[in-house]
């Protein structure tokens, strides 16, 4: 591979070029027994119990941004979706749809980031697929990841299990990912550190779920942000919610960009945060466990579940006012993940 080489239609044709790409670029990075067999699908052992299965596609534009790229986003995203089911993610698949002409070194960087992200999360990439489409038929690189994981024993988390009196914990600052993408895409330059928060949350979830604390809901507030996710849970569980503005963690510089551009951080995407809804008596302990994780240092109890105004989320504003936090309508920022 020379620095100027690009992906060609040949790389997706299933012939010699495809095989060379797999054996030279992909297998060495993702290496594991199931993948090395090069069969049509992966065969792997699983312990007895219940499984969680999830899939997600990534079309973020641009594919490189501050703090990450489409590769770790795709791995972390599926890892987190499985973790939010109350499961320990084990195996994932990777489907690449590549636009002809993508520099091979860009692909190499993305694949390396995926391998690193999988290692950090402790999951194996066991099967995959590569397609190349003519220039203009896709935008540089789209990735689909699917994954499976084993549920932790006795755990039952669901968006429908929030109960009046429960506390709402957010594992860190809001809106970091959406603002990082926006600034990268629009070429906006702001002072400070506007990095994506993309991170695997499965270790944090494992620590919480194996602590003996009861957890009713786990959800990662990705597209639509914390505001939309809380509305979904309130609707699913048939409860109301009150969130306290003064307790909502937002980085100062992210808040500054939001103020400037007229965005509400409550509706901006996160890729490395979770919402945990837990009974009041376990809230402080769960908060401490989350804060002990490297991706949970800024965690806070941001609100509580009520039996008032079922299906609605209210914000107690810093000045003592109260307003509705509705679900996001349409797109605030397109193609953020």
């Amino acid at each position, binding site marked *: 591979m020379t620095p100027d080489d690009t992906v060609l239609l040949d790389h997706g044709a299933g012939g010699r070029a495809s095989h060379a790409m797999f054996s030279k670029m992909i297998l060495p990075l993702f290496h594991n027994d199931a993948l090395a067999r090069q069969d049509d699908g992966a065969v792997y052992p699983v312990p007895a119990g219940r499984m969680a299965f999830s899939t997600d596609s990534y079309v973020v534009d641009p594919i490189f941004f501050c703090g990450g790229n489409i590769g770790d986003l795709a791995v972390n995203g599926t890892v987190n979706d499985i973790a939010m089911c109350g499961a320990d993610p084990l195996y994932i698949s990777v489907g690449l749809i590549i636009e002809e002409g993508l520099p091979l070194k860009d692909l190499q960087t993305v694949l390396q980031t995926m391998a690193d992200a999988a290692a950090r999360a402790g999951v194996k990439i066991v099967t995959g697929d590569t397609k190349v489409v003519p220039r203009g038929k896709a935008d540089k690189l789209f990735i689909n990841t699917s994954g499976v994981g084993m549920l932790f024993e006795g755990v039952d988390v669901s968006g429908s299990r929030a109960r009046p009196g429960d506390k709402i914990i957010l594992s860190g600052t809001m809106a970091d990912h959406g603002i990082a993408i926006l600034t990268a895409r*629009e070429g*906006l330059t702001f002072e400070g550190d506007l990095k994506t928060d993309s991170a695997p949350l499965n270790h944090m979830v494992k620590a919480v779920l194996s602590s003996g604390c009861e957890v009713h809901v786990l959800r990662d507030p990705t597209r639509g942000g914390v505001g939309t996710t809380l509305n979904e849970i309130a609707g699913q569980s048939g409860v109301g919610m009150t969130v306290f503005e*003064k307790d909502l963690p937002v980085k*100062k510089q992210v*808040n*500054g960009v939001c*103020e400037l*551009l*007229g965005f*509400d951080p409550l509706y901006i995407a996160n890729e490395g945060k979770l919402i945990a809804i837990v009974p009041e008596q376990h809230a402080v302990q769960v908060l401490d466990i989350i804060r002990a994780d490297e991706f949970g240092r800024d965690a806070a109890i941001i609100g509580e579940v009520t039996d008032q105004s079922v299906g*609605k989320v*209210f*914000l*107690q*504003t*810093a*000045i*003592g*006012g*109260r*307003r*509705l936090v*509705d679900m996001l*309508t*349409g797109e605030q920022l397109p193609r953020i993940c």
Partner: protein
Amino acid sequence: MGLTYMKEFRDPGLAEQLVTAIDQECTRPLRIMEVCGTHTMAIFRHGIRNVLPDAITLLSGPGCPVCVTAQTDIDAFVALSRQPGVIVTTFGDLMKVPGSGTTLARQKGAGADVRMVYSVFDAVTIARQHPQKQVVFCAVGFETTIPTIAAAVLMAKDQGVDNFCIYSANKLTPPALAALMSTDGISIDGFILPGHVSVITGVDAYRGVFDTHRVPSVITGFEPIDILHAILSLVRQNRSGVPALENAYPRAVRESGNPKARQVMHQVFDVCDAAWRGIGRIENSGMALKPEFSRFDAGLRFDLHLSDVDEPRGCACGEILMGLKTPKACPLYKKSCTPMTPVGPCMVSSEGACAAYYNYG
């Protein structure tokens, strides 16, 4: 040490003191209009309405540029997007506003080249990058944005970017206030005057309207403390019976505003009459390109075949913009008109009164 203007102006203790003073000093029902859409949003975002006494009714005025854009102008933007070889550039809010038939967003979905920009200068850049295309900017704004649009036209002229042009639906704030005050049935006890617009116009621009109608008026900023302070001033002016035109935003607004920005604006645009959605034609409230800049006028460059259209039946946007109705009194509100399916522009723009009522309750 610098003030961030985000902490100090959101101080809960200070807010409480202001609310208590408003409570104690407001002795009769007052109808206060915030003219600017950004104020409407700030009032809802910070939950200001429900910390105020019931005696105070806040009304949202004609100060969201998207909301007052006439349907004919929206139709023009859509018609432009249908022209072959044209790239239409616009601020995001306009994308979903329905014209008489469709929206720019739907046109985009159907294959038109419609691009969202954050600055009019991005539109000039796009024009430079695509010399074989015509790039039109949908100019919808008040005094805050008109000077930058004027500067972009000057830049395009200086740099010979001849494939750039604008469709001007720009509007001026003080003439709209004057028209509003001269309308029968209007009853407003105080105005919260726009902050950003006043940075350009200065306090002086409101002098004429104020001297004629003697309605208490306070220019203020967008933080909760700014807004509560303005409301307290309006309560006090009403109580004392001595109306004043007050600048409570001196950290940004000067008496004479920004003369340089106005000079650029008037170098490129002439004042003209303009149609305001829901309100109708208001004299001297619009901005048309001067004859020497007519080659940058999309309305002249393209043959758009526009006709005047009736506004959707039942839509109360006009009465809402004039403070005669609140969104909840509109028969379409939350029924056929929602942010997913907006009928009038007050529902589609994030700064529109109806969207604010809907989203923030």
